[in-house]
């Protein structure tokens, strides 16, 4: 299991609901991909109510991260390789 703490993340939203995160991604990023729960982003399994929206903005990946006591965080991480992988996955669907 990967740890989000090892990523150079920026918090866009904190203590949000899964619905708020999905709406934020859909309304703020022209590029996004819907994934199922358990889908790995970096080395982290995503938690949420499907479909889980993941935003792509240049080399940035924007994704929800849920913890039992703190709700859902919307994180932004710069990683060209992961952004490319997600774009390729979207294209292949």
């Amino acid at each position, binding site marked *: 299991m990967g740890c989000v703490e090892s990523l150079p993340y920026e918090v866009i939203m904190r203590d949000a609901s899964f619905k708020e995160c999905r709406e934020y991604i859909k309304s703020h990023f022209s590029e996004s991909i819907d994934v199922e*729960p358990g889908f790995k982003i970096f080395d982290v399994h995503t938690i949420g109510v499907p479909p889980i929206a993941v935003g792509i903005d240049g080399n940035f990946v924007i994704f929800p991260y849920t913890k039992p006591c703190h709700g859902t965080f919307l994180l932004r991480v710069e990683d060209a390789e992961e952004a490319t992988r997600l774009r390729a996955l979207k294209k292949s669907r």
Partner: protein
Amino acid sequence: MAGNDTIAGEAPQIKKTAVLVLGCPQVPVQTSVALYLADKLSGAGIAPVIAGNKAAITLLVVADPKRHYLKEVMDLDRAIAQISDKKRDFDLCFVFIHNDAGVSYAATMAAISKAKIFPVIYGEHWEEMAAQITFPCTKIAVKAVHNPLPIKKIIDEVAPSWAA
């Protein structure tokens, strides 16, 4: 007898398993209900595994130091990773829910596991949380914050369905 507790010619019985996915332990009933449920499952011949964050697991371990009720416990992130990666799965899954994160974990378990899902919904906002769960499951839902008896009553009612 051939082998461990196996009569010659008879297929060995595979024990059912259940995972209890704990939420944030800020609502008092969770620890009490988790111990009760673990004991109830063990009594029904179902092996309970409890997954939670450090705080939730520590509350249980301290409450049951001789492990009369607790069997296997594991870190929640590790449990999600093992189930997602198809390294492990369970027959039954009880997800403790009192907030939005709990709903997210329940939906995740429904998506990644083949287990029969039982959301255990409680707390002040139990109706709002219950309404957000639309996937097929058996909800154990009631207003309970400090008094675990309303949840215990429903658990006792649905327990016969575990064998199915």
